[in-house]
């Protein structure tokens, strides 16, 4: 029996609604408005909209549910974001559970299907990235939990014929104040689903105040850990469907080149090979096992057409970017008159910085499993963009969206790479052609050579100080390819790419004359979102340049920053905390020095101090101390782990490899030539969290931006030689 769902209340932000589940139970969902400007405050401006609800929601597909109280007593909290290590499988259910009054030990996490109500308002799609998940969910999920709790209390009060004020929800049950009666949520669910709402629809149900929280701010064990230490966790490559084939696609090495012809007789003779065929992105080898497909591909002969990109290489790209360091550009920020201020400066310097392309190198290579049938399609995929997957499959198959199911697996790393659709296209296309489920496996070389890379950029900075040593002028020109022009063209404005100028246009330091410009210079190299985004380049150049200016002004780098942050207490606090915990004012160990850097990103602020030493063949980072203000902390241990992880990600880009191009091809193809930071290269890490009442800020990408400048500034302090490019070559010191 299924009752028609009912709208229960319209709050300022969301239309909440409930419905009954087949088999008895309650499902509670909410319609969130879809698109907003990328700021939390913008939520206020969003208008609620009513969404169509299917006439008979079933337990398997309830497009707008956040909470499912199953008839058999199970409590399912729905996760609409991808778990890629950042902990959303634990932290987002914590928000629901806090208000619903259930323990994390009492719940199951159910992964969301694709549905309009699961849209991430920061990204405008049902997607995970840019350190937005918790910020997006913070109010909405707690409201969903609070409404469900209220309905369950109302249902208990009606059952017992007592006032609602005598009823209290605790650990999945409603208790009556007399201490003799209680009912489990499951027993109340059906009744709650049919209840009218007693309050006027405009009065929001209050959320618990922070001092009443029992879950938020604590550190319950991550819900995904037991699976991940026993080999039971299921990633994309672990999907096994009946009759499934394995495929691997040989792409042309020259970026953008196409296959001219191929010869596959020898490859086809490998036992287990089922088919070799041309697909959109190359030549696919399809086999009964992964190994047969991979082995056959090695002897496949593929000949590619010459491409206009065939001569592209890093040196040419650099030369083009250099040309863009002068001449016209888009204006990202202007304050005062920087030319006049530079002319009037007592001393000034100019530095050009270079930051290379970087790959994501998720440890789980890209992959996707698709099962396309004439009337429906299922895609099992580690993705950061469920909505994009559905759209990709819709375009390729022509099936309506409601016939396309997207099953999100765990992600063996994401970092922005899994927002792309190239691997989804491979799988859907092949399954459609072969009429069988197909798992597409990318090799490590495919993964490194056909990524959407963190853009390479060049930066020209000029700064001037007056006779008192005050920093008066700051000019910053950024040259690099646009990412948003492809990924989110509607957000390009006046030639500005928001991610390329992130952390540069909106500098926290008070400098009277400041001008920031962006010059778009596209290249054949595909670019995409990367952990920390544009902040990773801009924090490096701005924080390193600041240290050069401090040197010019004869000031301590910390003191200069403090002066420039006089009216930024939040920034000063993390800066001072990191410096204090790192022992900034104490004399350094012989042969070592410390560097400091600050970054503001994703609604959070971080300061990082790195202690380094250098020898002819090696820069060694001994210790890193971070102080973080990320607003209210939902799970402090997950925040610390994310800062550590982001820091290591950034340290790899600081000390290890880069992606370079030669003859139109990416030169790196394995971990030998694109090395990741290793266990024995790890610094000791301390992460200190600042108490804050602000709404949560993002943390996944937060640790990455400040580590490169902190290390570079430490080397500058140690050797007197500034760092002007990444990765840092030990031979330069």
């Amino acid at each position: 029996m299924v009752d028609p769902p009912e709208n229960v209340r319209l709050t300022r932000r969301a239309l909440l609604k409930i419905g009954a589940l087949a088999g008895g139970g309650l499902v509670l969902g909410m319609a969130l408005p879809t698109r907003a400007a990328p700021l939390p405050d913008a939520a206020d401006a969003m208008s609620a909209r009513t969404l169509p609800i299917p006439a008979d929601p079933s337990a398997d597909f309830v497009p707008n549910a956040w909470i499912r109280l199953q008839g058999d007593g199970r409590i399912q909290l729905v996760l609409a974001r991808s778990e890629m290590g950042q902990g959303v499988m634990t932290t987002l259910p914590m928000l629901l559970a806090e208000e619903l009054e259930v323990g994390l030990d009492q719940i199951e996490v159910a992964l969301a299907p694709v549905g309009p109500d699961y849209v991430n308002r920061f990204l405008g799609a049902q997607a995970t990235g840019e350190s937005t998940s918790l910020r997006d969910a913070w109010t909405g999920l707690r409201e969903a939990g609070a409404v469900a709790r209220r309905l369950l209390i109302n249902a208990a009060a009606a059952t017992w014929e007592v006032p609602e004020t005598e009823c209290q929800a605790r650990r999945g049950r409603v208790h009556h104040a007399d201490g003799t009666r209680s009912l489990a949520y499951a027993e109340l669910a059906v009744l709650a689903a049919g209840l009218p709402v007693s309050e006027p629809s405009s009065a929001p149900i209050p959320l618990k105040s922070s001092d009443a929280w029992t879950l938020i701010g604590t550190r319950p064990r991550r819900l995904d850990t037991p699976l991940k230490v026993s080999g039971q966790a299921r990633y994309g490559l672990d999907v096994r469907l009946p009759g499934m084939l394995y495929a691997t696609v040989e792409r042309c090495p020259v970026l953008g080149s196409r296959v001219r012809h191929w010869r596959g007789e020898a490859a086809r003779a490998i036992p287990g090979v089922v088919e070799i065929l041309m697909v959109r992105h190359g030549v696919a080898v399809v086999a009964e096992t992964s190994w047969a497909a991979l082995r056959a591909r090695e002897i496949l002969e593929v000949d590619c057409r010459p491409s206009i990109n065939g001569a592209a290489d890093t040196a040419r790209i650099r030369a083009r970017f250099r040309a863009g360091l002068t001449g016209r550009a888009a204006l990202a920020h202007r304050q005062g008159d920087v030319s006049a201020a530079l002319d009037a400066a007592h001393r000034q310097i100019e530095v050009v910085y270079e930051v290379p392309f970087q790959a994501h190198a998720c440890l789980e290579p890209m992959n996707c499993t698709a099962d396309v049938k004439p009337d429906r399609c299922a895609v099992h995929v580690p993705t950061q963009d469920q909505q994009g997957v559905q759209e990709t499959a819709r375009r390729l198959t022509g099936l309506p969206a409601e016939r396309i199911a997207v099953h999100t697996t765990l992600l063996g790393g994401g970092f922005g790479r899994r927002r792309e659709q190239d691997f989804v296209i491979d799988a859907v296309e092949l399954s459609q052609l072969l009429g069988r489920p197909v798992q597409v496996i990318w090799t490590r070389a495919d993964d490194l050579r056909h990524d959407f890379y963190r853009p390479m950029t060049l930066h020209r900075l000029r700064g001037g100080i007056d006779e008192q040593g005050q920093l008066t002028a700051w000019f910053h020109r950024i040259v690099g390819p646009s990412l948003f022009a492809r990924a989110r063209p509607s957000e390009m404005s006046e030639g500005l790419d928001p991610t390329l100028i992130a952390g540069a246009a909106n500098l926290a330091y008070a400098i009277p004359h400041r001008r920031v410009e962006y010059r778009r210079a596209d290249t054949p190299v595909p670019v995409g979102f990367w952990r920390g985004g544009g902040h990773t380049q801009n924090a490096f150049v701005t924080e390193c340049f600041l240290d050069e200016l401090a040197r010019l002004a004869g000031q301590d780098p910390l003191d200069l920053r403090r002066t420039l942050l006089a009216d930024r207490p939040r920034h000063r606090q993390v800066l001072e905390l990191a410096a204090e915990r790192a022992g900034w004012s104490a004399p350094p160990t012989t042969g070592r020095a410390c560097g400091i850097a600050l970054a503001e990103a994703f609604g959070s602020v971080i300061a990082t101090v790195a202690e380094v030493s250098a020898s002819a063949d090696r820069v060694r980072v001994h210790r890193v101390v971070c102080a973080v203000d990320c607003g209210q902390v939902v799970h402090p241990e997950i925040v610390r782990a994310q800062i550590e992880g982001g820091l290591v990600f950034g340290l790899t880009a600081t000390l290890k490899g880069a992606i370079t191009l030669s003859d139109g091809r990416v030169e790196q193809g394995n971990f030998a030539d694109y090395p990741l930071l290793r266990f024995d290269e790890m610094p000791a890490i301390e992460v200190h969290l600042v108490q804050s009442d602000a709404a949560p800020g993002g943390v996944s990408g937060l640790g990455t931006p400040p580590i490169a400048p902190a290390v570079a500034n430490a080397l500058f302090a140690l050797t007197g030689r500034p760092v002007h490019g990444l990765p840092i070559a030990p031979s330069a010191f």
Partner: protein
Amino acid sequence: MIPVTLNGELRELDLDPNMPLLWALRDHLGLTGTKYGCGTGECGACSVHLDGVPVNACVTPLSAVAGKTVTTIEGLSPDGRHPLQLAWIVEEVPQCGYCQSGQLMVAAALLTAHPRPTDAAIDAAMSGVLCRCGTYTRIRRAIQRAANPEARDG
């Protein structure tokens, strides 16, 4: 037929002796806990024990395991309560988790050889297993916890 003792059970594998152990485990034996990260012996995600010694399954042909004992993450402990698994949970080691089967298998072999490993021994043993999520600090703490019975449950 290739005889192998896999997670305590004697198996006869009717597979190509050139097939890397990794693919036999993942595609033929249903043991997907052992991961593919590079296929060329550079990341350690595919680490398993061969007669108690960690090897990269992606570059170990089945011919090399004939008559030997192979243990995968699924066979590390009967109930998921190996001291390292418990320590991994307490220290909140995994992030994406993809590298962790390999990390655990290498760490387990280390503890068998050196029940109280020094920091240098931990470095030497663990530096072949890459973690893109940067969980190394926690891995070290978890190994130290597991190696120190008094600290295990704390």
